[in-house]
């Protein structure tokens, strides 16, 4: 039970019960829908990009405690960040919850500006539950899809994908 509390930390339970930025954005410049076919969960991420920067971000949908809390905390974490910063944060987050510390990809992203995870550290317990990794990454993949979606000004940055970004692992 103590290990269950490692997964379901108070902060996570709080965000799952009272998700922040849980609404649609009428004038979103981009949006994407994420879908986990394993559990049927769907989440929509709304973005207002101002140049290269996330001016506003919100989400809607139904998911488990892990995916809802992850989406909620993600919106708080990436608001105000540049696209590159948001993607770097996802890469760090992915390393945290899969336990892989992206050493293999370090030559690709050799820059040393590893972003601070801050509150997102509470998701470290997910790594002990490999089948739940996809729950935690669903909102982030959706965010990335929204960032990558076309139709916005020519800001699209050069970057390559995060080292482990494509799959939720295990």
């Amino acid at each position: 039970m103590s290990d269950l509390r490692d997964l379901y930390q108070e902060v996570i339970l709080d965000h799952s019960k009272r998700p922040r930025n849980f609404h649609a954005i009428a004038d979103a410049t981009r949006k994407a829908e994420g879908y986990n076919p394993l559990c049927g969960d769907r989440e929509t991420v709304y973005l207002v990009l101002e140049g290269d920067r996330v001016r506003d971000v919100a989400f809607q949908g139904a998911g488990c405690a892990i995916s809802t809390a992850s989406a909620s905390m993600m919106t708080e974490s990436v608001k105000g960040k540049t696209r590159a910063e948001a993607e770097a944060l996802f890469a760090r987050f992915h390393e945290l919850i899969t336990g892989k510390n992206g050493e293999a990809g370090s030559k690709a992203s050799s820059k040393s500006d590893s972003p601070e995870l801050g509150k997102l550290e509470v998701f470290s317990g997910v790594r002990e539950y490999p089948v739940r990794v996809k729950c935690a990454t669903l909102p982030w993949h959706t965010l990335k899809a929204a960032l990558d979606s076309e139709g916005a000004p020519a800001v699209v940055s050069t970057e390559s994908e995060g080292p482990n970004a494509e799959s939720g692992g295990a």
Partner: protein
Amino acid sequence: MSATTTTSTSTVAPEPRAARTYDVDAIRRDFPILSTRVYGKPLVYLDNAASAQKPMAVIEAEQRVYESLYANIHRGVHYLSVHATDAYDAARETARAFLNAESAHEIIFVRGTTEAVNLVAQTYGRQNVGAGDEVLITALEHHSNIVPWQLLCEEKGARLAVAPIDDSGALELGAFEKMLSPKTRIVSVAHLSNALGTILPVRRIVELAHARGIPVFVDGAQAAPRMPVDVRALDVDFYAFSSHKIYGPTGVGVLYGKTALLEAMPPYQGGGDMIRSVTFEKTTFNDLPYKFEAGTPNIAGGIAFGAALDYVNRLGLTAIEAHEHDLLAYATAALSEIAGLTIVGTAREKAGVLSFVLEGVHPHDIGTVLDREGIAIRTGHHCAQPVMDRFGLPATARASFGLYNTRDEVDALVAGIHKVIGMFR
């Protein structure tokens, strides 16, 4: 194995009759995996609708094949091939008797129920379903009884018609009957819903369809382990089930078909064993059932599948059905007491499966918390997304019972659910 001598230290108290005729403690000892501990807790395996555990008799049967009986079948004149063939054919006869089919050649060995549906769709279906025709299924089907027909309909320009279910998860028989049309070429229904536990009125469905000259395929994957099935009494045209859900190995299953239908159908796959003679100009196909069994089959698995049916027969499906009915009734009553819990699937005729949702808690979180209590349930859409859509749910939690489950395990489930509630509310 361990022949425990009954040392009567004191006269054994008279047990209730049910307990004596159906000794679940003794049955549990036949299944080695049930003594597993999970995170330090005794395993409570309530995911039998996904796959059932295997008794020692099945494990040993498969091992015995490889130790002393193994060779390819239907081919060799040598000792081992003859004996392996005999054992494999014996399993076919066991399956025939299990379904009360008329002849063993009506028993086609396949990889499982999924392959059986595909086989019929790709042979009978391609031969008989044309542009503008219809295939009629129900709204509670497993994906494996939807997608093969969808593929067929796309190929042929036919339409997949879906008979509705009501809010309890029961088939709306009146609507079903109305949907039987002159265009309907085949009806394909589950005998027992894997997501809701609904038992379909197969006998009645067959009567309605046959009155219009339409054959009926029945997906018996969930029913065969849980209730006696008599294909002649039901008068079904096709019936399929999987070994792994009836305590046998994976990768084996049965397609039953009436002789006349099977004989009129083209082969499914080409290869060895399904032919009588081959030249580059012309191939003559083998007799039933071999016409549908191309290639070397799962020999050891098939023989061990026979052992699984023997095991189930020894306990008796009527007794198993009664035991699981008791568990379902007990669990339904217990779960109904839990505030905020809703049972999904409340048809009057139910068996084996208890799907539920908990207000404010996603099924995945239920599953994770229960897992840490040693309780294995299924969470998700149960390969029946249209059923989930019908009830407006992304997913449910599902406990499903097997012949070895106990009321104590239901109690553990209830305690686990209270733990979930304590954590998330």
